[in-house]
């Protein structure tokens, strides 16, 4: 019993002390300076006085078999849990493939944002390959990435909260509603695109994650539109949204044309045939859906 009280006092004392020990050990201080505020109450004061000199050395935490056992058990449990989560997660979400989409750097992000807003001067839209695998986005500006869509989504939620706040319509639940609403529309859009790609039997190397990335690029335009609407009123919102809609439209068409259409048609040669025409319509439909969603998701934020 004496032993258990001893260890419990040591636990209570040592937890806050480990936190406070950012500074080097000036253990010349009297024990009262550290012990007073953390434990409090009379019963611990009694044991505190004679345990204080021992308590300073951090090794008492490890030499105490009970806490040693607990720590070992806890760490083994944590590593087991981590293994299990990793194994199961890898089955559903391909983590290694996701890492490719986040391999970006500042230069790429800057250039890509510029391209999303002004795609009219860019000439070469082909994704460069390196021995059959697409090059990481860091090295090729045409490669899709997931960093900009993810950041854009989160920023859109925050900007929506800001816009609603300036109109006194804000409440914390609204943020959650906006987030889930936008997410649901994104999922619907990606599913509709997947369905139409399946129906038109396009032989393309567009993966689902690519489609999520392309669908997420419109958040950039939406954010710019809403911010312009906050700063300059409805006129600013409409003008900026119009500009961003047009640039997203051109961006999507030029990017998807190379992936969906056949080689010859992508180079601008007019290839007749129902198949290519259908593919062109599909590209235009996907690109035209972007401005519609951009307006649909932002018009209620700017009054």
């Amino acid at each position, binding site marked *: 019993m004496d032993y258990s009280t001893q260890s419990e006092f040591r636990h209570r004392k040592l937890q806050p002390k480990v936190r406070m020990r950012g500074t080097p050990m000036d253990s010349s201080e009297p024990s009262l300076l550290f012990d007073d505020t953390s434990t409090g109450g009379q019963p611990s004061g009694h044991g505190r006085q004679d345990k204080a000199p021992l308590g300073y050395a951090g090794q008492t935490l490890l030499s105490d078999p009970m806490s040693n056992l607990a720590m070992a058990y806890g760490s083994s449990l944590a590593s087991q849990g981590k293994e299990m989560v990793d194994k199961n997660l890898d089955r559903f979400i391909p983590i290694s493939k996701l890492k490719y989409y986040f391999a970006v750097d500042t230069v790429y992000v800057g250039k890509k944002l510029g391209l999303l807003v002004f795609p009219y001067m860019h000439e070469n839209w082909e994704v460069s390959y390196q021995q059959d695998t697409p090059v990481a986005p860091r090295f090729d500006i045409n490669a899709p990435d997931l960093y900009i869509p993810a950041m854009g989504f989160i920023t859109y939620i925050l900007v929506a909260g800001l816009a609603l706040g300036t109109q006194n319509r804000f409440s914390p639940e609204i943020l959650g*509603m906006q987030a889930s*609403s936008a997410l649901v*529309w994104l999922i*619907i859009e990606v599913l509709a695109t997947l369905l139409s790609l399946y*129906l038109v*039997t396009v032989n393309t190397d567009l993966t689902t994650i690519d489609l999520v990335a392309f669908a997420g690029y419109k958040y950039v335009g939406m954010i710019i539109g809403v911010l312009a609407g906050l700063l300059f009123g409805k006129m600013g919102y409409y003008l900026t949204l119009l500009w961003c809609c047009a640039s997203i439209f051109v961006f999507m068409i030029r990017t998807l044309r190379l992936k969906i259409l056949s080689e010859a048609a992508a180079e601008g040669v007019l290839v007749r045939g129902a198949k290519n025409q259908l593919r062109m319509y599909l590209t235009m439909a996907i690109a035209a859906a972007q401005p519609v969603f951009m307006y649909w998701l932002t018009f*209620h934020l700017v009054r």
Partner: protein
Amino acid sequence: MAFTLYSLIQTAILCTNAIAVLHEERFLSKIGWGADQGIGGFGDEPGIKAQLLNLIRSVRTVMRVPLIIVNSVCIVLLLLFG
């Protein structure tokens, strides 16, 4: 216009149910969408109608048992929690 993930799940279940209940002989064959009417030419291009029919048939085959389970769960939950 506030969509939640829950309403998305509801929509997905309802749509999948709707596709799965299209009966092969009683309905699809009558309107020319039967399984044998989809495989038209054996060329390289299946065409949209063939793809659609293929999709309907595969949804019916693949999702039959999961839909039974999911629908039962939904019924129980809706009865319990309204």
